[in-house]
């Protein structure tokens, strides 16, 4: 059945949401505008920058290239789910420690890409860290510190 609107159920960071959503709505817009989870950012909106990266059923995706209706029934993790209240997790703390952000715009995506990497490879090689962050652009040119932060969090 083809429809332009659909009711979807999505579990994000442990909370289940049921919402009516237009088929044309991108997942990033659904998360930010409908659910007010504004941690995930929209940078380029062309699938290049990675600021909208989140985990959908454990898989790292760019949520500007996925429709919200495609996440029906899925478990989604965004940057808001990383900390325990005000307590930063190990990776976030490492970003702070290593000055791995300047303006912070790319940080939610960087954190989710690094989270996906460390889950799959708890002790990644230097090259694996660089490859894992390839889909995330930082325009403050802070790549070196981001790399250091991920490396330190992995150890």
């Amino acid at each position: 059945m083809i429809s332009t609107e659909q009711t979807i159920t999505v579990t994000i960071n442990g909370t289940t949401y049921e919402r009516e959503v237009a088929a044309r709505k991108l997942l990033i817009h659904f998360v930010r505008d409908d659910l007010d989870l504004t941690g995930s950012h929209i940078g380029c909106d062309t699938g290049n920058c990675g600021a909208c990266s989140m985990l959908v059923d454990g898989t790292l995706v760019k949520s500007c290239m996925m429709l919200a209706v495609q996440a029906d029934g899925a478990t989604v993790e965004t940057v808001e789910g990383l900390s325990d209240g005000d307590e930063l997790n190990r990776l976030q703390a490492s970003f702070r420690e290593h000055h791995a952000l300047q303006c912070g715009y790319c940080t939610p995506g960087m954190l989710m890409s690094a989270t996906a990497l460390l889950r799959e490879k708890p002790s990644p090689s230097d090259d694996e860290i660089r490859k894992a962050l390839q889909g995330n652009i930082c325009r403050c040119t802070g790549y070196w510190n981001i790399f250091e932060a991920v490396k330190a969090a992995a150890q």
Partner: protein
Amino acid sequence: MLLREVGYARPSSLAEAIELLRADDGARALAGGQTLINVMKARAGSPDALIDLNGIDSLRGIDLAADGTLSIGAMTTYSEIVASAEARARPIIGEVCAQIADVQVRNRGTIGGNICTNDPTNHLPPLMAALGATMTIAGADGERTVTAGEFFLGVYLTAVAQGEVLTKVTVPAGRGDGFAAVTLGVDGTCIASAAASVNGSVTVALGCVDAVPVVVEPASASADDVRAAIEAAGIDPPSDVHASSAYRAHLSQVLAVRAVNQAQGAA
């Protein structure tokens, strides 16, 4: 970016998907969406409805037959191919998939989407042409299987007609394969590419030089024969901001020789 209003359906069977695509001329199959969603944002394409193939399990997965023939479901993602032990029967496929864009794109993008898009800058059309892959297309009247030469028809155009779905890509056994590309930055948009296979005879497929992969068959794997075969093909690549026609033609020869050398080393 807000997309134009669009209908959506997520069928769970191939038959249902074909029925939905046949029922509406404005309906388009949605594979990984890593091209189509952006095309829709730019209004370069505005389908009336998206028929999402992600719910059809039979389109996913990799099978390796006893004779070494590899069958890859059209909805298999690049990441699944990279991680697949079966796909290593023809290692170049995983090696090339690992060079496509980035982790996020590889997690969503599919082999079927890549070749059905037939963007001349995509890696997989020339690779499939060089490997002698065949494509199986399903429609209301059943299935048909076509060669790469029959499949790739033009820029963004393949033999998959309205109301049809690419179901799988079949790659014959072989190991002597190579691929070389010059891209904008590591793993970025392709300026020129060449895929080669030296399993018995030598086959080279050039990407980014024409609307479809240009296949040439050098007399031998020697660099002179590879260059001569490309000269004889008389390619006339497009010019753009990244490379002139002459530079693309030059790159084609350089990359073809590299791909053939890699193929010989792997054979």
